């Protein structure tokens, strides 16, 4: 049998959370939980990239320091793909180093939050990005 992807139909917008720390994923998920969009989680860079291609999320919340592919690498892959380039990206960083944030914004991230961040702040940014 030759390769064939069965059709997948989806009518809800998706938000992807990519962070290697399960507690952070739980926090972000609990913060942004909503009926307006579906939320999927990835625990490393490679999984994040695979899920982005599969779900074509409207928004990605991306931890910068992840094993495998770093958040910045994933961000660059997203922006390099013409079909995905419109994806909104918010970076979450635990590094207080300016360099990373600057690099992320140049690579096309819409916004960044430094850990520890305020969940309410994050929610505002997510709603802004999704224009809810």
């Amino acid at each position: 049998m030759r390769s064939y992807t069965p059709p997948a139909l989806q009518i809800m917008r998706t938000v992807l959370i990519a962070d290697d720390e399960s507690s952070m994923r739980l926090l972000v998920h609990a913060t942004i939980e909503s009926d307006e969009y579906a939320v999927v989680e990835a625990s490393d860079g490679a999984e994040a990239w695979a899920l982005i291609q599969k779900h074509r999320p409207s928004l990605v919340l991306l931890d910068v320091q992840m094993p495998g592919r770093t958040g910045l690498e994933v961000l660059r892959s997203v922006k390099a793909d013409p079909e995905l380039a419109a994806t909104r990206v918010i970076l979450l960083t635990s590094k207080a180093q300016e360099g990373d944030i600057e690099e992320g914004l140049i690579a096309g991230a819409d916004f960044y939050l430094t850990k520890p961040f305020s969940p309410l702040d994050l929610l505002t940014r997510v709603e802004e990005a999704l224009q809810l």
Partner: protein
Amino acid sequence: MTAPHLREGEIRVMPDRRGWSLRHYIALFVAVLFAVAAVAGLAVRTAAEQDAREAAEADASFAARVAATQINGDLLLLEETTAKLAANPQVAVILAAPVGPCSLTFGAGPFSTGHLDIVSPDGSVKCSSQPTSKGAVYGSAGWLPRGLREPIMVAPFLDPVTGLVSAVIAAPVDRGAGTVVAIVALGPLGPSLAATLGGARGLEFLVTTADSDMVLARSLEPDRWVGANLSNTAFISYASSTERPDVAGTTRIYGRSVVASSDWVVFAGADKAAALTAADMSANRGLAIILAGMAVMLVVVFVVYRRIAEPVRRLSMVMRSSTHSGAANAVAGTGASEVTALAEDFDQLMETVNHELAERLKSEQAAHLSERNYRMLFEGHPQPMWLYDVNTLAFLSVNDAAVDRYGYSRKEFLAMTIKDIRPPQDVPKFLELVYEPMPAFDRTGPWRHLLKDGSTVQVLVTSHAVTFGEHEARFVLAEDLTENQRLELELHQSQARAESNAELSRAKDEMVSMVSHELRTPLASIVGFAELLVTREVTPEQRKEYLAVMLQEGRRLTSLINDFLDLRRIEGGHPTLSFAPTDAGALIKRAVDLTSDGSSSKVETRIPDDLPLVQVDSDSIFRVITNMLSNARKYSPDGGPIVVGASVVDGMVEVFVKDEGLGIPSEALAQLFRRFYRIDTPDRRKIKGTGLGLAISKNIVEANGGKIGARSEGPGKGARFHFTVPLARERSQTGDVLVVEDDSGFAHLLEAELAARSLSSIWASDAETAEHLMSKNTARAVVLYLLLPGFSGEAFLQRLRATHGIGIPVVVVTMKDLDPGAILSLQKAGVTAVLRKGPGIAETAANMVAKSLVSELVAS
């Protein structure tokens, strides 16, 4: 090799014997060989052509059948796909709503390019797997009305979205609400069939409509032919024959088959010319093999003739002629080949043997010479050198320069130990250092050495470990320091200090940045969840979940900070380590008890009964063992067995912890002991850790004079962690009073008090070690602290009385007041006194011990 008398003329006159000669037989054989080869060649050529034609026909028919089956399967798959999607309730939702958000993915699979559309009755696209086709309208397509009523399969269709000739597979959505359409391009079908089924022959594939009017797919030039009309081509005019020209005129041998579900006709055609060329080639190969066979046979015949027939004839001639003439040189000339070779070989052998003997003699002389040279190097070296025994510290050998410089005679030297050449005020420091583990090669100083005339010199000492006869020894070179050298050395040392300070501060910076990063993640969880709890209404379950995460992350922060502080303390160079003889086996057993958590991992201990005591700081080494054990448990998630043990390896005690858990990738082995290094593989993500445990362990082991390491065969194959620690020296295991006390501070205080009363002491930090030390039979009194780790003080006391009787006075020290019953039982066990810890108690205890020893002496 031709002797002058072996000329052709002479051979001819030799009388012939009866029967055919070998030459005749060979000639006949060659002639038969040629005849057979010619017949075989002819047969091969005719057969090959016939075979090639039949094979091409069979291949083409088979390929056509397989292609038809495959296309049939692919079309059915697409029918099933559209039917399934049409039945999906979400499709009805999309068709009912105004254009809403939707995404559809479709891997066209069998036909490699295509798209899937959800089409409303007016032909507009509501949702598509191909974003550009969203606005497209199929309103004018002929198949649309039928596609709204029933499942259809239409081809060819010029797709307005892609502009490609395509097939349309549609399934209607409930009650004429719309239709789900898969539109797949036909262009790639031909090349794809050729790629998978074309085989070595490079078959041409042609798919036509049922009436053979239109080309649906072609493997060659698909762009030109897909969708083209066939009626005027040569292909149609020769329709009855298997051998016919294709659409472009090339003659091919065709096979034909029909696709069951669609009545499409599939042709597979093999190039006739190529097939016959292949037949030619195969015939030529056959001929080549025959020719090669013949060539080999001819060579064999030739070789047989030259190597057997000729020499036999020649030999017989020589023998005959020498019989006639009696000329000895003739025989020698012919028979000589082997004989001369043998003689030559023999000569060569003799020559080799002689040469070998000469070489060996030379190297023996050289060895003798170099030994003398080396001895001269030692004896005649202008700087003082000596060898001393590491255990007794006695001089084993000294050179002339040492005798000259230090003023002691060689005999005096050999009666002394290296302690005796230190000025008395340096002896304590010397004793403290000399029993510490030393590196194999060492350069230290400046030291003060005492000369025979009572003066001292400052020297730099270079030494390295050697084995001298039976002795474990060190070889020492002592260099006098001139004033200039001393200044230079001081300068050098201060520079090194400055450099190491800079290094330290760099490391500190890196550490601070790393730590702040490590602390942020748990902090983010705690702060974040706290804010959620404060600002949001949450269900009781959520509250519990959030609080659990906060607790877990808070604990993680705590252990990070603890580990971090420990690391700083150890790395800061002020470790409060107290070295004492210790029973490593007891430490291991205690660590196993402490870390056992009722999990399924079975821990086996392998400790030999005669394991010697080690010289370590027991608290810190205990920590290393527990760290290794808890790692072994953590990284054996399936509860595999763990083995922990110790043995003597190269004069050190090696402690190891072995598991059969997740193992370590080879590239990670070198990094394991770095701070914050954690191996990152999916199976480890759930295992918590600070990444500091092994870094701390490494520091501790090195501060104890040992080495740490890890081995693993690779992921999934378990790991083995080990470290070494030095053996306790004999000297540190003997003394007048045994102090059994786990608090090193009190033990040192007591040692000082005892020393002031001219009593030497040995210190054991637990009862197991104390028992070992008692077995040396040097201690005459014991100071015992009751609350010991592991084995209790009371138990030790009972065993002491059992092994050594009541002759040994015991002073007991406690932390709190004992109840009268306990005091009574201690007194029954013959305890001299029970003292409660407090200021001045060390002095009191020392007095008690001294007094009891004196009374002991008096009594005996």
